[in-house]
């Protein structure tokens, strides 16, 4: 009897603590979601184009998205997409090759090389901004030609970001490689037939981070593409709508732009989420 009571007590306690936790989580997620909901709602507001003191639009419509289509936004979006895509492809290839080499090969100066890159990686990238601008400007890769310039910049030093994936590769038993080699596989075949399928999460993590970097880049993109709309990426282009003389005409269009920019990244993350978490933590097991 008393046992039974005790059991019931536990159940109620569980329920109470669960509902408290859920309420807390709901409150947090509502707070977290408010800005996003706000932006989405504003992007469908067509009765005025400036900032207003209410959230729910009085008139709904797609005019802001039509404005986007008729502005330079298309160009900016394409620029950003090309840069991000190129960075994702090149950076992933380079990083994976680098990690495979450092994980599986033993060669002279391997240790010093890794330490050297570790130290180089400690310098903030912004430090090199001005000299990189000069180099790009001499190559003619600034302003209207900023897209190849920015690709070059984001790919150039990507080999140094090998830590996480090398860590992951180290956890895959070397005996697998050896077995494959005995069966006649080349080094390249070992990489793409044995290692990569086993390291799927880390590959996806690499692609995602490589894509995200240029996607949200503002500082460097602005510096390289200054004053030339054709070379802007979305962040720089949309920022130019926020000046005093522009904001009243462009505020809702800006919100619509924000939604469009968020879409591919959101979709990418939703699809690849489970790999992403594995990837982030997977490489951390052994350094």
């Amino acid at each position, binding site marked *: 009897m008393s046992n039974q009571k005790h059991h019931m007590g536990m159940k109620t306690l569980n329920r109470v603590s669960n509902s408290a936790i859920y309420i807390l989580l709901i409150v947090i997620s509502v707070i977290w979601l408010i800005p996003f909901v706000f932006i989405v709602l504003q992007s469908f507001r067509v009765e005025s184009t400036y900032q207003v003191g209410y959230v729910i639009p009085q008139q709904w419509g797609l005019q802001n998205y039509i404005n986007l289509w008729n502005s330079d936004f298309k160009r900016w979006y394409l620029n950003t997409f090309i840069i991000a895509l*190129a960075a994702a492809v090149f950076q992933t290839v380079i990083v994976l090759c680098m990690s495979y080499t450092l994980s599986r090969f033993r060669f002279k100066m391997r240790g010093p090389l890794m330490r050297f890159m570790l130290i180089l990686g400690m310098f903030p990238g912004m430090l090199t901004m001005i000299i990189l601008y000069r180099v790009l400007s*001499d190559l003619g890769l600034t302003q209207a030609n900023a897209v190849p310039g920015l690709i070059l910049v984001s790919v150039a030093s990507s080999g140094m970001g090998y830590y996480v994936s090398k860590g992951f590769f180290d956890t895959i038993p070397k005996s697998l490689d050896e077995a494959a080699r005995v069966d006649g596989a080349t080094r390249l075949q070992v990489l793409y037939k044995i290692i990569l399928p086993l390291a799927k999460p880390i590959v996806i993590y690499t692609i995602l981070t490589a894509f995200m970097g240029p996607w949200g880049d503002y500082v460097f993109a602005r510096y390289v593409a*200054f004053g030339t709309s054709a070379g802007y990426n979305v962040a720089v282009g949309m920022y*130019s709508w926020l000046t005093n003389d522009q904001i*009243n005409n462009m505020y809702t269009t800006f919100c619509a732009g924000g939604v469009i920019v968020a879409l591919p990244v959101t979709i990418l993350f939703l699809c690849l989420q489970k790999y992403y978490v594995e990837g982030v933590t997977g490489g951390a097991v052994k350094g």
Partner: protein
Amino acid sequence: MKKLLALILALAMALTFVACGAPAETGGGSEGEGGGEAVGNELAGTYDVVIWAPEAAVDLTKKQVDDFNSSNEYGITVNATVEPVSEADAATNMITDVQAGGDLYFFAQDQLSRLIQAGALSKLGASAVEFVKSNNNAASILAAQAGTDLYAYPLTADNGYFMYYDKSVVPESDIDSLEAIIADCEAAGKNISYELENAWYNAGFFFGTGCHSDWVTDADGNFISIDDDFNSDKGLIAAKGLYKIVSSKSYVSASTADFASGSAVVITGTWNYSTIKDQLGDNMGVADLPSFEVDGQSYHIGSYSGCKLMGVKPQTDAVRGAALARLAQYLTGKDCQLARFDSFGWGPSNNEALADPAVAADPTLAALNEQGNYAVPQPNIHGSWWDIAKVITTDVKASDGSDEALKAALAKYEESIQAVFTMSDDVKNAFTVIGSINGDGWTLDLPMTADGDVWTSDEAYTMDAGVEFKCRQGKSWDVAYPADNFVVETAGTYYIQLNAATGEVSLVPAE
């Protein structure tokens, strides 16, 4: 795609080595090239020109360039690329890389000094000076000036602020009194948007009580000193007025068109007109700023008035520079200014355009004009001043409104601005040589070392006959010898020597 990009990257790498060997192109041109002394057919030709205009004005500017091509008498054809760059961002963008910047660009006048120092503007030539001075109003000419020289072409003279109000909250009878407006808004639970935590706005209170704050620049756009009396009895009156509004529960530090979100009064400029018209409809009122009362006396709040200017980047090719000067004069002329007024409501600086009936009848320009009686033309201001002066409002707001607290806020302000020019005593007392030595045009102070009262230049300089120089103390002109420039009579290599006790300057031949 991959192949293409791989190819581009490979090419880019190869080009790096080529670029290393290529000689660097030189940027700045010499004085007067932007001014255009050349006349007639010498200018005929086709020029590729990059123009930076605010996004809204891009299409109009393209059209105006086409009109220039078909109407100019010099045979100039301009092949223009118009890029949207806000006039608020022009200097930031220009300074990134002047060589790659726009040839003609719109900018707000507060950027003038930075642009001159970056080499993005040069002195206008005589004909351009004549054009600017004969066509524009006094405030806009002043805005384009550094030292005594003109550097840019006035585009508008409407960069000031005044009051928009909601007639349903603030009755027309109250709009002249700050106290009445505050009372009305507090009673209605509405806000007053007045961006006083920004020096451009809060300085108006001080100008209203007769204070002044003037930065002195030399001809190269360098700041030499400041003449400022915000920390005075008049300044204290202004601080009391400021306290009245910032201590009100209705006060919001903003200048956006936010009638839709609870404001009944917004202090802002012409750029928000159409938005506010849209928000308030028939209830919109426009007026000059109100007056505030301290110790029974009334003070009308002042303001800054400012201009937008068009800059012409110095060109290495003098003919091209002259052609661009013609284009700039056309674009800042009467017809183009009126077209901009029609399209965006930008208030002209051109005298004839100002007399146009449509311009004279515009309500916002009328309010701006009325406020103009109390406005101070915005001179060249040291970039750090904005951050120093905005703190006055924060300090006044945090204070209890007592005389002591307000005085403390003003004293703190004065200390901060004086610190801008603080030099160590060594630097202040040291003499330096400045002049046309080394072909250097009076821009560089050459160091001297003292032995008692006798100062000798650290190096010997090779000077031609006719080279002029002076020895000055503390890099300013308060103490400088000789009274008239020292002129070298015989070419040679000399040390320069100064007896600071007598003010006597002499040349000592080097071995």
